[in-house]
């Protein structure tokens, strides 16, 4: 391995090698930085901004920002946690996130992130309640875009791993959404065995595999037992 250097993350020393992002270096050192649009095995794109940190006083996305020697990185500070809470709240307000009826509840990363950040306070944002389509045309897969948070994980998995380009962003700004390569999902060459359809790719309940909803009982679901990212931090609001 090439030469390594160190930087400080919330006062602790983290070692990194050139080309590593702040998040990769932190992960390697066992320090969790919250994230939604980034997941193992996919190229980071830095779009959800939940991994926001301050590097030498500037806010950057930890998943795309290369680590820099001797830099000072802040992650679990009241200011940064406030940003993260606001970002996660806005995701809840932008779509239609009905946790009580969602089969992803309990294994949903958006929900788990809100739990981890301790979001229980009244909100200052309006609920947008957009009218968004549900595409149940495919025999094995449902797309409930009410729950989509535009993380783009399905896009990257389909393009970079499956080599299919089933999903892509369409539109801009508030009109941006994830579209499929056809009139609806049944017209594409998507398959239930694609990496993009795997349960750990969609962080919410947008991509649903038919015939297997609510397969883990309440109390035993992934985030019933432990917070996302392990040891709970930054709960205070």
């Amino acid at each position, binding site marked *: 391995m090439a030469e390594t250097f160190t930087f400080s993350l919330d006062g602790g020393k983290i070692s990194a090698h050139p080309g590593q992002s702040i998040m990769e270096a932190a992960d390697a050192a066992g320090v969790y930085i919250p994230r939604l649009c980034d997941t193992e095995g996919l190229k980071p794109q830095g779009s959800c901004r939940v991994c926001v940190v301050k590097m030498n006083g500037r806010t950057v996305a930890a998943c795309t920002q290369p680590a820099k020697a001797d830099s000072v990185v802040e992650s679990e500070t009241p200011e940064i946690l406030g940003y993260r809470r606001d970002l996660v709240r806005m995701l*809840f307000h932008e779509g*239609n*996130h*009905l*946790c*009580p*009826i*969602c089969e992803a*509840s*309990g294994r949903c990363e958006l*929900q788990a992130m*809100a*739990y*981890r950040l*301790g*979001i*229980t*306070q*009244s*909100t200052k944002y*309006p*609920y947008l*309640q*957009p*009218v*968004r*389509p*549900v595409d149940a045309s495919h025999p094995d897969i449902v797309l409930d875009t*009410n729950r989509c948070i535009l993380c783009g994980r399905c896009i990257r998995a389909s393009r970079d791993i499956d080599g299919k380009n089933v999903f892509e962003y369409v539109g801009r700004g508030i009109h941006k959404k994830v579209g499929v390569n056809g009139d609806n999902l049944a017209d594409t060459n998507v398959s239930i065995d694609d990496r993009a359809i795997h349960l750990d790719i969609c962080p919410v309940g947008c991509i649903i595999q038919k015939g297997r909803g609510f397969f883990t009982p*309440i109390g035993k679901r992934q985030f019933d037992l432990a*917070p996302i990212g392990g040891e*709970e931090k930054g*709960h*205070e*609001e």
Partner: protein
Amino acid sequence: MKKRIATVSLAGCFGCHMSLLDIDERLLDLLELVEFDRSPLNDLKRFTGPCDIGLVEGGCCNEENVHTLHEFRANCDILVAVGQCAVMGGLPVMRNAIMHAEDPLRECLETAYLDSDYVLNPTNSIPNDPALPLLLDKVYTLADVVKVDYQIPGCPPSGETLWHTLDALIAGRQDRLPYELIKYD
């Protein structure tokens, strides 16, 4: 002096009230600390005086809900939104955004009373008695209508969560819910 508590279920299912009963024998402890004013638990329909804490389950789907909520805000020092319906609309809010519907409320009523294969409705009409509260165009959260001081998420919040919150509110203690009690489902 005992704290005075009022509770109500607006566009809810009474599940949150049922959950309050899940605090089991601590109900006796609660009754040492509080006195219930207007509440379905004692069947009082009107406020008898100002209250310290108002617990509101459900959002607002009709004009009566809005009227009741304003009464709660006017009579309660602390107003708490209890459960997902009060916090973000919950299941009733699904009628706000129905795919391909020009007029979601009409479509919802037509499906419920006229068009569904499972409906037996000899008059073939949507209920329209003057005694029925007028439905609102949309389902509103509590915070859309009045200032809300606290919210307890959950569908329903567990008895443990409600107890934890009430205990802190009654004691006037700043507190937060531990990880295992924060649930949105």
